[in-house]
């Protein structure tokens, strides 16, 4: 009897081992379905990125750090300050305009919600170029806004609100706003509304309940939106190129002109690699911070 039981046990173990291996093989076969996408991404994304990385360290006589050293040049430094300045202003403007809107969307009656959602989604789905063009038409010297302000007698001379920093910031804020509102709205909608009732039951005024209960719970969504907007701003090309009128040079435009105007691949690659590192570092930092946040929430 004991030998039979032992044999059964061995047989069971062998069987389990075979099943496990079969499952692993099956897993590999299923994962292979992702290979066309991975091959395409490897060829069209990783290969050129690696190449740019290589070029950024290559000069006329082999290895060089010259392209990176040149980034300390005042002209480049100006580009970096402009880029970060615009990104900060646009992100702040998006928070100021987007937080109230997302809040109202999460609180308003069910039947009014589709209208607000449409106001965010329609621009989101409209071509970026079309929206940039619309702002050019609105803001130019003889444009709609200047015409109206003059007709109303508020100003005598047309304002210079395009082909400069102001126009760039207005246009970029318009384009980035949905990227902040959508994740923020999703996280606000997930907040349990009974919590606010409970706070009010415990004697909190509406302002207290908002500040001590709702606001902290909405912060992860706000943070995700802020990081997304900031990172997108850093590498933004089209809107500053059109609404900046050549006076506003951002990081991405510097890369473009190095390639298109000067065919300086080394400089363009170094700028690109630096942009990629900053972008990925911010995104990585966000995931780290969220994980810490998560643990704090658990404990």
């Amino acid at each position, binding site marked *: 009897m004991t030998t039979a039981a032992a044999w059964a046990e061995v047989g069971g173990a062998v069987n389990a081992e075979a099943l496990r291996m079969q499952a692993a093989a099956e897993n590999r076969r*299923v*994962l*292979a*379905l*992702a290979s*066309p*996408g*991975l091959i*395409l991404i490897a060829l*069209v*994304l990783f*290969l*050129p990125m690696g*190449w*740019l990385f290589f070029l950024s360290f290559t000069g006329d006589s082999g290895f060089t750090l010259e392209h990176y050293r040149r980034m300390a040049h005042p002209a480049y430094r100006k580009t970096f300050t402009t880029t970060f300045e615009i990104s900060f202003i646009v992100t702040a403007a998006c928070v100021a*305009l987007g937080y109230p*809107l997302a*809040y*109202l969307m999460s*609180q308003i009656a069910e039947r009014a919600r589709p209208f*607000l959602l449409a*106001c965010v989604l*329609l*621009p989101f*789905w*409209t*071509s*970026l*170029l*079309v*929206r*940039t*063009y*619309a*702002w*050019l*038409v609105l803001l*130019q010297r003889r*444009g*709609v806004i200047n015409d109206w302000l003059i007709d109303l007698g508020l100003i005598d001379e047309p304002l210079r609100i395009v082909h400069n920093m102001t126009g760039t910031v207005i246009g970029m804020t*318009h384009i980035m*706003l*949905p990227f902040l509102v959508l994740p923020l709205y999703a996280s606000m909608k997930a907040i349990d509304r009974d919590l*606010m*009732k409970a*706070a009010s039951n415990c004697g909190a005024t*509406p302002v207290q309940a908002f500040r001590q209960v709702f606001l902290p719970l909405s912060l992860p969504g706000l943070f995700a939106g802020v990081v997304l907007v900031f990172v997108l701003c850093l*590498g933004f*090309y*089209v809107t500053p190129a*059109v609404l900046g009128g050549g006076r506003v040079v951002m990081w*991405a435009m510097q*890369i*473009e002109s190095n*390639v*298109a105007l000067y065919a300086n*691949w080394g400089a363009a690659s170094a700028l*690109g690699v630096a*942009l990629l590192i900053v*972008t990925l570092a911010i995104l990585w930092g966000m995931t780290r911070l969220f994980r810490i946040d998560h643990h704090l929430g658990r404990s």
Partner: protein
Amino acid sequence: MLSRPASDTQITHGNRLWLYLLCGLVCLFLMAPSLLVIPMSFSGSRFLQFPPESWSTQWYDVYFDSVEWRAATVISLKAAVLTTLLATPIGTLGAYGIHVSRTRLGSLLQVVMMLPLMVPVILIAVGVFFLYAKVGLNNSVTGLVLAHSILAIPFVVVTVSAGLKSFDMNQEMVARSLGASRAKAFLTVTLPQIRFSVLSGALFAFITSLDEVVIAIFVARGDSATLTRRMFAFLRDQVDPTIAAISTLLIAVSVVLLLVYALLGQRGAGGGR
């Protein structure tokens, strides 16, 4: 009306008045630019005014009569359709494989499939331009489609993964235990039930390619310029009313696609159970 409660706490509509006003202004800020372009595109004069002093469809005639604009539109549509046809199956297969395997390698692959969204587009454009110069793909629709596809794949992966999460995989197991191969089980049981997610992904892929500018600026020059690339070139020089007409047409396309997307979302939510 204003003294009625607006929420579960004691806030009234009157207390919220400032919020309604502020949000009204934000909505105006979001909607007005796109909406103002529509009436202005029917302007009778060379100058863009709002409201226009006279009306005409002359700028639409300019667009439809121009060989260059028509050619650019054809290239844009061709690239968008081909990108959709390439990115949708690739992204769907990827999302399915990653969802089924549930291994650590799988979640790593998911991150890799999302990477094209995290890399600044300007870098993809410069890199692809450099690569295509070596292999002779610059100014070709093939090159454009390949580059647009890697931008579109993440959107397809996200929408299809979401669809698979609300799908009960046991159904596929049942089909396979009854003798169907994995491919057959997927095609006859799973795919029909996640079809709205797949279609949403396809829609995203189409609009991604149609609206893309930066990559096109680099790899679609001269005769192979896309619609948006040509628009960009014109924007830098002058404010041409023809652009307003084309913009209106593009807004119409966006509205239609958004409505289809909303419809798919509803059907998907109802049919997924």
